[in-house]
């Protein structure tokens, strides 16, 4: 009987070990999948940031144009001023549309040469500290249509993720 008990014990122990190994394998696999998903999420967020920065640069209400001919990577200074004014005076119209396009983000244009000026075009932060902030910096030209002069600027896009 003692021998039978030992055998039974061995069987139970073997099964328990197998179960534990199986569970460890599943936990390891799930963890690996989660890390892979996180990496993919980061990649997609970076792609989103590029798409949004392209979108901002191509907005007809900001882009330089001359009799319907639009110029890429060029922002009209008067339109920048007008855009900021519109944002401040008409948040009821501004926010619903631009939030659907930009989400939780901050978009700013900083003129860096020959003078320094800044325009905050959009600012919608999360109510809490973001888990991750993705930043994109795009060089653009700013055209002053009154003086017919160009200046060098950086379009900054920061996206906030929970």
């Amino acid at each position, binding site marked *: 009987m003692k021998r039978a008990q030992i055998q039974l014990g061995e069987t139970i122990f073997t*099964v328990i070990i197998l179960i534990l190994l199986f569970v460890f394998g599943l936990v390891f696999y799930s963890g690996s999948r989660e890390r892979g998903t996180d990496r993919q999420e980061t990649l997609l967020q970076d792609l989103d940031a590029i798409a949004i920065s392209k979108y901002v640069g*191509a907005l007809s209400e900001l882009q330089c*144009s001359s009799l319907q001919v*639009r110029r890429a990577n060029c922002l009209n200074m008067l339109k920048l001023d*007008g855009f900021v004014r*519109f944002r401040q005076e008409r948040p009821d*119209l501004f926010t*619903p*549309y631009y939030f659907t396009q930009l989400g939780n983000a901050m978009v700013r244009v900083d003129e860096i040469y020959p003078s320094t000026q800044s325009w905050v075009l959009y600012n919608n932060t999360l109510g809490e500290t973001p888990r991750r902030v993705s930043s994109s910096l795009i060089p653009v030209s700013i055209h002053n*249509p009154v003086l017919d002069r160009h200046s060098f600027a950086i379009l900054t896009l920061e996206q906030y993720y929970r």
Partner: protein
Amino acid sequence: MSKAQIEIQFNWIFVLVIGAILLAFLVTFSFRQQSSADQQVNVQIARQFDTIFTTTLQQPDTVKDYQTPLTDLSFVCNYLESRHSFLINGISARETRYDLFVAPQEFSTRRLYTWAVEWEVPFPIDRFMYITTPQREVIFYQDTPEPSVPLRTLLDAFPSNFTQRVVRDNFANVPTVQSNRDHYTFVFIDGMALPPARTIFQTPADRTTILLVQPNSQRIFESGRVLFLTVQQYENFRNDLLPVAEIEQVSQSYLGKASFFAALFSESRERYTCVMDKALDRLEAVSLVLHASLLEAEPLVSSSCRALLIGTDREGFYGMKYLLEQVNQTVQRGMSPATIRELSTLTSRIDQLNNRVALETNCPLLY
């Protein structure tokens, strides 16, 4: 029963119980994995379509042709109830409240055509994106040996990749149900000798849209009206029996090339009106930004430039600022033929003023 027998039985019971637990666990796990994999596939498909749309919108006037897995697509546009979405296989993939997407309501396809056109009235507002498939055909009717100027303009602008045909007055290539398309859109231009309905409409009524275009001039895209007709209404119109009130109910105006093609590809008056309501929202926002930029320019420019941009006290002379204010007020009324008529007048005046501004030195153009 001996102890050994009891032991063996107990062993088997133990093995069966553990085996059953393991099996249940594995089955649950595999179902969860399958559900997770399905969700991943849907997300991937949604991302692919997002990329398709973003790419198309970045390159206006370019037709794109995409192969996709067989997918059920739906585009919901209901302006009054504020329901705007794009669904893939029944699952909402994107909110489209501010997207000017013109597409059939529901369709299944393995191949997608997309085309984006900038809407300019006369300054650029936004891009319409038209989505169609090779199984949706547009049929243009030509009543004379050579196409009229409006028809020629339309045929030249219509993408050659899209499924289309020109039916002449000999009706040799009229589409029939054997053509086996998902949808047929017939386009007639007012002023043509319209053929009898029985000679030309041989496709199922539930898969047919009839458009009668009434341009305001030979420049078909400038502005005009489109009538969305049933076969009976077409026949009544042809015989001058369609009441004016009914004509008003089935018609809607267009302004500009992008708007015209929105009417063509929307396949119904309701969907066209919905997308134009969204377009007018964008027009309102852009006109306000431009209005604000004029106010910023006011102290910086010469008096002659200021007169063009802001206006003067002289009666009857209105600057760009006033015209933009009028645009804004007109747009508030919503989509209607009267709105489009007034916008057409205003945008024409804005265009003339902008051309005059171009002749001034250091005077910023509106667009």
